[in-house]
């Protein structure tokens, strides 16, 4: 907590900026790989999240994109302390989350909730909707059954479900409706901060737009702050105010949404955006196709982790810096952060490549 105070004191411009709700500092999560006889010796570690630093501002939606295995879901869970961090700290409203104990922790927990990806496996099939949504309030002391039912009915109405379905079981609902149940559960304790972990990935397009609009409405009505994790770049662009891009456990770029989509400053972001097929047959892109697969997070490449697949490095004649030095996430101007030694060259080089240009 004292560190939070010093941080705030150091930052003279803090008052002019939007208020920070969640502070993530040098956060890492390594999963040990055990091996040897009886599996007791530690033979390595998967660096799922490796030294990530950023802030989430009150009332904003921070999108987090990246491919499978880049650590975005792990990051979301570590921020909620659902799994312990290996290193680093998370401050919630200025309070250290990892040091909190007992009632303090319970109070923080109540304020941070999560919506899961899979609406099928994230709801207990033996509990009714009323029990699922009312469980949080019960744990936090709302023991009066009638009051709880009243609250659950209110929540169901709020997320667009029929209140009379309170005694039904999850299997009686469609995927989109189940996701609404998951949202109602997350909102039951009136949180300030919600981690949405791929909340629409499992849904069909027509249902996806219903849920996205609902999340938008709820944010407006309740003043929620979202960390929105997804791999679909169009969805993230639609819902986010700022967007972070992850690659192999690292945050490689962070900027306002328009800035990031229009002027990406990390070669990986450029490649990601170029890879998305656009629903417009007249704009068949000339793609910037990355070679190979994402390397293993148990044995990440030296220096910049993206250097093994980087198109920019190739164009610049394979400079050694990329292999020897790990680029830090630095402000390239206007709070547009990028972790690339050659961030200044990205825009021009990408334009020359015609990465986003039309073919016809």
């Amino acid at each position, binding site marked *: 907590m004292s560190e939070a105070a010093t941080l705030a004191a150091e930052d003279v411009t803090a008052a002019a900026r939007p208020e920070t709700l969640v502070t993530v500092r040098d956060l890492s999560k390594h999963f040990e790989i055990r091996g040897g006889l009886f599996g007791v010796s530690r033979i390595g570690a998967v660096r799922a999240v490796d030294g990530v630093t950023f802030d989430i501002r009150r009332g904003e939606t921070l999108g987090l994109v990246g*491919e*499978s295995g880049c650590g975005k879901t792990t990051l979301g869970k570590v921020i909620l302390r659902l799994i312990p961090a290996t290193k680093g700290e998370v401050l919630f409203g200025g309070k250290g989350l990892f040091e909190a104990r007992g009632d303090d922790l319970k109070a923080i927990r109540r304020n941070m909730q999560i919506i899961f990806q899979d609406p099928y496996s994230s709801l207990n099939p033996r509990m009714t909707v009323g029990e699922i949504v009312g469980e949080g309030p019960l744990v936090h002391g709302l023991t009066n059954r009638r009051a709880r039912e009243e609250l659950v009915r209110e929540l169901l109405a709020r997320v667009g479900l029929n209140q009379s379905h309170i005694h039904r079981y999850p299997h009686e609902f*469609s995927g*989109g409706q189940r996701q609404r149940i998951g949202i109602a559960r997350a909102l039951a304790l009136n949180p300030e901060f919600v981690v949405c972990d791929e909340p629409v990935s499992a849904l*069909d*397009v*027509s*249902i*996806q*737009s*219903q849920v*996205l*609009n609902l999340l*938008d409405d709820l944010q407006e009505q309740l003043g929620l702050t979202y960390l929105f994790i997804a*791999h*679909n*770049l*169009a*969805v993230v*662009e*639609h*819902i986010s105010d700022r967007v972070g891009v992850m690659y192999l456990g690292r945050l490689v770029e962070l900027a306002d*949404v*328009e800035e990031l*989509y229009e002027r990406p400053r990390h070669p990986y972001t450029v*490649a*990601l*955006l*170029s*890879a*998305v*097929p*656009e*629903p*417009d*047959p*007249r*704009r*068949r*892109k000339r*793609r910037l*196709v*990355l070679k*190979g*697969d*994402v390397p293993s997070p148990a044995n990440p490449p030296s220096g910049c982790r993206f250097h093994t697949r980087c198109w920019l490095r190739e164009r610049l004649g394979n400079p050694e810096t990329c292999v020897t030095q790990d680029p830090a996430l630095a402000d390239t101007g206007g709070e547009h952060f990028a972790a690339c030694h050659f961030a200044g060259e990205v825009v021009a080089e990408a334009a020359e490549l015609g990465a986003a240009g039309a073919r016809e």
Partner: protein
Amino acid sequence: MTDTLLRVRHLRTYFWTLDGIVKAVDGVNMDIGTGRTLGVVGESGCGKSITALSIMRLIERPGKIVEGSVDLDRTDLLKLSESEMREIRGNAISMIFQEPMTSLNPVFTTGNQIAEAIRLHADIGAREAEDRAVEMLRKVGIPDPERRARQYPHEMSGGMRQRVMIAMALSTYPQLLIADEPTTALDVTIQAQILELMKELREERRMSIMLITHDLGVIAEMADDVVVMYSGKVVETGDVFTIFERPHHPYTQGLLGSLPRIGQRRGRLRVIEGVVPNPLNLPKGCLFARRCPCVMPICEQTPPPFQEVHPGQVSRCWLTPAGTTPAVGMTAPADVAEAEAARMTITADSGRQSATAAQMGEVGR
């Protein structure tokens, strides 16, 4: 126009479940031209995969193809014997599936599996087949194919396995490749690699592709022609530009409208209200009527005709080509009057486009 390679007519595939008959594919027509790519779109459960499996005659109990014809170069596949059909599968028509892990055999090396496919269809020796397998792996862009051919599926990443599947499917030089959600399980950068590969191979071989996906971006990128399916029926067909630029069916319009697009952020997404009808209890009129913003009384009573609305564009909807209500003579006069009245309440005079926009559009922000 190019010549038609595959012609599907009145295909019906039903499943006999304990709860009743599910008409998974109910009277589907589609044509695939030689060297062309047909995109089949629709949401889960609309029957797109079952259509593909029916073409391959891979429907198992409790499912059955009850009616229709599938003509490949004027041979009706549905009339062939099982052994004749085995000659077609993997030879004239190959199929790749969504999940590359479950469609490869874990106990054989990848080279082995591709060689087996080759030897089943060509009279060549084991050595030669294995050489050709390595050649195919090289062709689909797998680095160090000699080593990879000796590896098992679990030693490869998802993108790599999908390449192996494609190598296997193409090893017999099929005329038609059926790709059922070939990139859905893959990350975007890997998806981009696979789509580029499919394009290259398509040009090289003049191969026809039936590409099944729910991703309209992939369709726009790859397809020449598009079929939109809903609840077991084709609701609209046309070439890719027509479908994306002037879709006629309200469902197609809704699908395209509800998509978040890069570069067009903010504002509310259009929404298709409600959910797909229960396949065990389908409505008697138009299957989309309950979710349709332009619904008219006739829609709930009588299934709409599948009519050409523009040359080459066919839509299963009561709205006329211009998007207005049906002309007198197509239905009972009383109905028309009612329908017209209903339409007038939706919009004053400017037809379907504005009606849909008003109904589906930026309501409430």
